[in-house]
């Protein structure tokens, strides 16, 4: 498999508080990589630095054979103010901007892409509605459709199922598996929902105690650490 992203000796700090230290890992093309760990362990910080939203104190992040504008991103929370006039279709389309180069307006292909992704997420019927009038779950789907529009190689998801009910979460994981397998999309997902994640993911990046290490999903399931963290659910 081709390497897409390589992180070398990454140290990330807020002011002088070191969150993560000497993190090394790679992301390979076409894989489904889960980032797991406790609250406040630095999972979101780690992916923010991959996305260029937080610059690391030391170390490097290298991209191989792809550029930043081939990334799709679903933020953990988008705090949109209550009266922001933004249409659902407008938002999904805005995901296409990173492929339009210097072109000032959207092309027919862009509009088609937005339509396809809204349909995939089951919210095409809401396309004329105002974003702020939607429910939390519907908003997540619209933002995910936007992320799918902007993703060509790598899709980064920060706690995608928070705010979704269990049925919707299961449906979401099915969609992700479909995208991973049929669109050959590399997926990097931060999640708490470790059971479902282990089911689908190829590998797990476990963030704990200021550092992170990778293992395959199988290894991760068997490790003592996981057993302890999951409260012995697997023994039952």
């Amino acid at each position: 498999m081709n390497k897409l992203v390589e992180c070398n000796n990454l140290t990330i700090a807020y002011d002088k508080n070191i969150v993560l230290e000497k993190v090394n890992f790679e992301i390979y093309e076409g894989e489904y990589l889960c980032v797991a760990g406790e609250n406040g362990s630095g999972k979101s910080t780690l992916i923010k630095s991959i996305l260029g939203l937080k610059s690391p104190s030391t170390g490097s992040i290298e991209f191989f054979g792809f550029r930043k504008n081939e990334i799709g991103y679903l933020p953990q929370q988008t705090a949109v103010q209550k009266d922001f006039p933004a249409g659902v279709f407008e938002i999904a389309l805005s995901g296409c901007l990173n492929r339009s180069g210097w072109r000032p307006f959207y092309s027919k292909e862009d509009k088609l892409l937005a339509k396809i992704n809204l349909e995939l997420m089951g919210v095409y019927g809401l396309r004329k509605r105002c974003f702020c009038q939607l429910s939390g779950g519907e908003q997540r789907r619209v933002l995910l459709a936007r992320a799918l529009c902007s993703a060509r190689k790598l899709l980064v998801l920060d706690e995608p199922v928070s705010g979704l009910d269990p049925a919707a979460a299961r449906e979401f994981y099915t969609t992700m598996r479909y995208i991973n397998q049929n669109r050959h999309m590399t997926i990097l997902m931060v999640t708490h929902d470790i059971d479902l994640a282990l089911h689908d993911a190829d590998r797990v990046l476990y963030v704990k105690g200021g550092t992170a290490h990778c293992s395959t999903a199988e290894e991760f399931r068997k490790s003592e650490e996981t057993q302890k963290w999951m409260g012995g659910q697997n023994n039952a």
Partner: protein
Amino acid sequence: MLESVLTMFSYPFLIRALIAGVSVALASSLLGTTLVLKRYSMIGDGLSHVSFGCLAVAAALNWAPLALTLPVVSAAAFLLLKLNNNKKIFGDAAIALITCAALAVGVIVISVTTGMNVDVYNYMFGSILSITKTDMIVSVTISSSVILVFVLLFHRIFAVTFDEPFSKATGLKTGAYQTLFALSTAVTIVIGMRLVGALLISGLLIFPPLSAMRVCKTFKSTTIFSAILSVLCFFAGLVLSFLANLPAGATVIVMNAAVFCCLFAFGKLVYLIRQYKTKGKTIQ
């Protein structure tokens, strides 16, 4: 009445006022949508006070007003828009600081040099009826470039306003758009100040978008509607000020305020009717 409106436009100075005013009203209403949504409603006020201070200093030094005002106000706009990212001094507090300081400097410089006179009054409340042909050409040129930049970058401005981290993470050059936006805001305020004055320019920036937001659901419709409202209010305000012999800048802003109140009431009414309807459905 129609006759007096026709007489009104037989005066060349009123034609000049109309052309310059409409172009500035259009440019400021476009920029205003993003400013309001980014919680920068007061930036127009802050920057106009900075340009007031600059004009006072320029007058004291006998410099051309725009030569000093444009760069300083652009720098201030850039600084204020960037401060949002730096949470140590909050954006609104920074605007208040700059507003007060610039106004104080302006007042001191004026009192030491010329004293409060007609010029100063014009800086504060605008002098739309006394603008020259050159002023008009400058206003129209600058506003048209701002409008052109806005139209070409429309979708990108929406993306950055709606969700900046997403735009940055997916490879848009958010910093460049912000800089361009700050620059556009600065030049619009500097030229708009000559029309309606330092005290009223933020009205031109924020009233039309806020009115449009009462009834529009998408960014595109809000922007277009706000541009239309801004031009109509400017026209109506200018005519009214001529007919009733009122100060032009203030009348334009009062027009905007009246339209805002109407649309606010209309928006609430639509909301109530919709709620009533959905309730009816659930009962059935």
